[in-house]
């Protein structure tokens, strides 16, 4: 965990409204675990006041510029342009300075390598699944089910394929892959591979549907959640979600930034997760 005052190595639009940003982050890859995130200060001046949370898509090394120089260590994020902060980010270029705090939060538990894994990504929810796939692909069978509204919302699938992951794409409008919801694909795959464990990240309604499917079949599920965050380190208590057994009289809140963002499904109070009013735009995508 560190605050990196760093520079952007590249920032490109990879699909309409979606960007991929590569940041110089020496030392980051040794500590970053699948499912962790970072908090980015999008510009030095204010506003926007608060940092924005983004999942860590991957880390890696660039070949050294010249002999004797150490290779450059980088971190990549994928982001969707939704509001003030991400609009500013979309205008940043190679060489621009940004600050990132990370890696933060608890990542995925990679679990038993003898079990098959199904990863379910909805839109930008695909982000935290790549490093997970990377760490699993050599040890067990990994299948990625990727859902989006249209073909524009399907990201980076070929990169998963390069890891040896079997990928299935579905879109609501049928513009790419199978027409329909990704949860329908999930049910079919679980019929065929019932002993898989499931890892999911995406909009809340999708996660709820995934939860219901996995719960009914008694399949282990881990989900990565989004919440409004101010600090990202457990200091403000702004990012809490309702834990299992939560009642008005005995509230049980879990801190998304510190105890999450990845939770085992049985830690959460699913009956109430969808009730949050005016939650956030990104979650409705």
């Amino acid at each position, binding site marked *: 965990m560190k*605050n990196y005052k760093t520079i952007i190595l590249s920032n490109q639009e990879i699909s309409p409204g979606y960007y991929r940003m590569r940041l110089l982050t020496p030392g980051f890859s040794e500590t970053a675990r699948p499912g962790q995130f970072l908090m980015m200060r999008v510009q030095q001046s204010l506003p926007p006041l608060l940092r924005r949370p983004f999942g860590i898509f991957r880390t890696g090394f660039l070949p050294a510029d010249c002999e004797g120089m150490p290779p450059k260590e980088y971190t990549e994020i994928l982001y969707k342009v939704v509001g003030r902060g991400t609009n500013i980010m979309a205008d940043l270029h190679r060489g621009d300075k940004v600050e990132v705090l990370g890696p933060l939060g608890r990542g995925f538990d990679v679990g038993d390598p003898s079990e098959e894994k199904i990863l379910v990504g909805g839109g930008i929810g695909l982000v935290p699944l790549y490093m997970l796939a990377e760490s699993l692909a050599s040890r067990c069978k990994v299948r990625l089910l990727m859902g989006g509204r249209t073909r524009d919302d399907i990201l980076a699938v070929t990169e998963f394929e390069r890891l040896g992951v079997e990928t299935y794409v579905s879109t609501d409008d049928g513009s790419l892959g199978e027409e329909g919801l990704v949860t329908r694909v999930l049910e079919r795959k679980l019929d065929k591979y019932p002993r898989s464990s499931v890892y999911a990240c995406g909009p809340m309604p999708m996660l709820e549907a995934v939860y219901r499917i996995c719960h009914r079949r008694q399949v282990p599920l881990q989900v990565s959640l989004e919440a409004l965050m101010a600090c990202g380190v457990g200091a403000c208590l702004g990012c809490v979600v309702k834990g299992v057994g939560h009642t008005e009289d005995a509230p049980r809140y879990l801190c998304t930034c510190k105890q999450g963002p990845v939770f085992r499904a049985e830690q959460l109070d699913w009956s109430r997760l969808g009730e949050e*009013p005016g939650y956030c735009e990104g979650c409705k995508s």
Partner: protein
Amino acid sequence: MSNGCPNLTVDLGGLVLKNPVMPASGTFGYGEEYAPFLDLNRLGAVVTKGLSLKPKAGNPTPRIAETISGMLNAIGLQNVGVDDFIKFKLPFLREFTTPVIVNFFGNTLEEYGEVAARLSDIPEVTAVELNISCPNVKKGGIVFGTDPKAAHEAVSTVRKQLNKHLMVKLTPNVTDITVIARAVEEAGADSISCINTITGMAVDIKTRRPRLANRTGGLSGPAIRPVALRMVHQVVQAVKIPVIGVGGIVRPMDALEFLIVGAKAVQVGTANFVDPASMITIIEGIEQFLLEEGLSDINQLIGSLEL
């Protein structure tokens, strides 16, 4: 200024700090959350998240909303309670040489007294900061921080139970803050910190619902700095005890403004979220400014406002 290092030590009426910069309660957790990002030994003091007698779960979500140059929060004072704080959180802070100031609040006078009594026995707690600005309502509908009589009562109750430095934190949500300031001074406060957050609201225009589940919340951050500065200026004129300035401090120059109007120290809140090292930058910036101005001691700057 012989060795070129100006003196940053301030004396808050017996509570001596190596420099005047500390976190604002509720924005620095219990200290451990930010320890990976900055050296707690460099701070003037550590101020912890507000405690109550019993653990408190806080408000429903959404609890935060960003606004122009500020944020609204309605955390609802979620905390582990005074006993678990002493058992599980305080040992971590013992490892540092920095004084620990523990912020707390009560729902009733009895609770204020009880929490104060428990903290009184703990040697690692250097001072306490009494939050009378919380929106909790005493029997009879009087809010402690907005009624001078109730404020006086709360502070005297705590004073009787406490053998440590007593800092009292004021709410800005009043017509005349100097009336409350005088009441708490008279009741035995050793210092005053001001201000707490300003009640505000934000609405999602698409859903037409409040952006906070609690409907309203406390505004903090740069947006409130001019209001905080005005109130600190007023309180400094109204009382003899030291005043600690809080509200929207982000850069060294913001802290300097508060010191010039007469605050003996400052607290940095929301800025910690934006940059965990902001308090270190502020300490270094104050030092640099004193050097540039040819001042050997920060106390030459404090209260140097020209009117």
